[in-house]
């Protein structure tokens, strides 16, 4: 592990012009990075430079710009692969976002199920089981729920304890010899829980199931190394890690990608085509039909460079510190109940809470009047809300550019909320 140094938050903030914005007459306090992060000038500049200087379609033209664009796009793939410790850049598939990455996988299972010659690991039948958890974002729930319904497989899930942790004791019962796939969230977007992975991956291996992570909330915030994690796939999304919208990543082991039938078909994903038949390109091209998000890939690579320069261990340490401060300060607010772990251990700097007698929509509105931006609602995790008996929560989430002062402003604004509604 690299030695931890403190982030220079003032210098970081200078790279994010949006943080100087005022709402009304107050400076923005952006505490909604779990929904989407802000982008540093380095990312915007890289995309602009590419668009102004090298823009062309990739892998299609022999002209200079075409070659530069292809190099930039494939260079971004290699950059992302290195960032997550992937053994080969060919294991990195660019998608639109996490949601598409997970659907790509779910449709690979579905298409394999329809093909008697497909890899048996991917073919589902009644009695087979798919396992998720009760703390999934809908993006890692609904694709599997639908896949189960279409194939006759059974969807099962690992529950949540009252403290907002996975009920790991149930793992041996939930993951069984019939389990073919386990897909679970690395860091929960509503609860902020950082899930320990080793017990679940070990159990999945024991029963011969494929196992992977929704890493949408972990890759932006912690060092993630796919080789160390020992999983078969992870999915994440560019816009939550200082990168642009419109690009996400599916990383999967080469042998799994080889076995997977394509999801979308069309241009750029073929070897040969006749009117009757098509043979597919090797991964990753097999999964990247059509013109991909090229400038966005360039932006994502710049975001990865930015995060690497900060050092992911330092990012983690900064956020752990902010999580501790946020929890401590929020606990002082009258009538506030934290939904999720109440200690800054095994948790991210994303904290959901309810305020007695005040609906989160109203909390968010009053906070906005104080220029404090948080997210309110069910956070695309309705089953998690149900588990804790709430309809919605208010969620504050911090990232590399957030300060103690912004958390103080959140807490002060929550005091104002109480004044308006009681």
């Amino acid at each position, binding site marked *: 592990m690299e030695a931890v140094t403190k982030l220079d938050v003032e210098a970081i903030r200078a790279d994010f012009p949006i943080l100087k914005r005022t709402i009304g007459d107050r400076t923005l306090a952006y505490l909604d990075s779990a929904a989407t992060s802000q982008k540093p000038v380095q990312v915007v500049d890289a995309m602009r430079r590419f668009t102004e200087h090298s823009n062309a379609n990739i892998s299609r033209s022999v002209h200079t710009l075409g070659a530069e664009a292809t190099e930039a796009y494939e260079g971004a793939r290699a950059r992302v692969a290195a960032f997550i410790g992937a053994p080969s850049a060919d294991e990195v598939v660019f998608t639109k976002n996490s949601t598409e990455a997970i659907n790509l996988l779910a449709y690979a299972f579905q298409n394999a199920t329809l093909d008697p010659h497909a890899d048996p690991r991917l073919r589902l039948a009644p009695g087979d089981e798919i396992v998720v958890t009760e703390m999934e974002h809908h993006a890692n729930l609904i694709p599997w729920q639908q896949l189960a319904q279409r194939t006759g497989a059974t969807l099962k899930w690992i529950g949540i304890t009252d403290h907002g942790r996975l009920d790991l004791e149930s793992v041996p019962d939930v993951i069984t010899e019939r389990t073919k796939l386990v897909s679970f969230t690395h860091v929960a977007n509503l609860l902020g829980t950082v899930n320990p992975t080793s017990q679940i991956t070990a159990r999945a291996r024991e029963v011969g199931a494929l196992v992977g992570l929704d890493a949408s909330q972990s890759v932006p915030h912690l060092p993630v190394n796919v080789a160390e994690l020992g999983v078969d796939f992870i999915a994440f999304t560019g816009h939550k890690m200082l990168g642009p919208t419109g690009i996400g990543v599916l990383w999967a082991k080469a042998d799994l990608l080889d076995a997977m039938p394509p999801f979308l078909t069309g241009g750029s994903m073929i070897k040969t085509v006749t009117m009757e038949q098509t043979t597919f390109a090797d991964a990753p091209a097999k999964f990247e039909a059509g013109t991909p998000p090229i400038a966005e890939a360039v932006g994502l690579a710049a975001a990865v460079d930015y995060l690497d320069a900060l050092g992911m261990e330092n990012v983690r340490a900064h956020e752990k510190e902010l999580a501790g401060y946020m929890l401590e300060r929020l606990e002082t607010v009258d009538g506030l109940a934290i939904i999720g772990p109440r200690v800054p251990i095994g948790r991210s700097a994303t904290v959901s809470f309810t305020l007695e007698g005040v*609906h989160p929509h109203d909390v968010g509105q009053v906070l906005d009047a104080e220029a404090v931006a948080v997210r309110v609602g069910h956070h695309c995790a309705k089953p998690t809300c149900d588990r804790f008996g709430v309809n919605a929560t208010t969620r504050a989430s911090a990232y590399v550019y957030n300060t103690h002062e912004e958390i103080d402003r959140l807490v002060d604004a929550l005091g104002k909320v109480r004044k308006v509604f009681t």
Partner: protein
Amino acid sequence: MNLDELYQEVILDHYKHPRGAGLREPYEGESHQVNPTCGDEITLRVHVDGDKIGDVSYENVGCSISKASASVLYELVSGATVDDALARLAEFTELMNSKGQGEGDEETLEDAVAFAGVSKYPMRVKCALLGWMAFKDALVRAEASIPGRTDA
């Protein structure tokens, strides 16, 4: 932004002391509406009595705007003729879609004019309309269930 403009006294009063809350019998039409972005929900029943709205009863979870709006709805349409209730629905919907331009007619909309400020906040317009959508739907169902009233 001006919080007072959004959270008018009248709105906060309806929120804290909702009128006509709770589900009651009899009723001919019931509707359940959900705001998928925030999870707010309402179940609303309509009892039609001749050409009048005999009662509107409801149970809801939601923010101050959606709860106050249901309370105001109850006051406006309960006891009104079906035609008047539909006219209020049209007026209120128009006010909510006015993007801050409408003021609303206090003669007809009464307390509901306090929602004029809400129309400036696109994220909250849906909250204000949730109960009214339920009313519209429940009324259609009620009319459909009454023999000889399928023309409405």
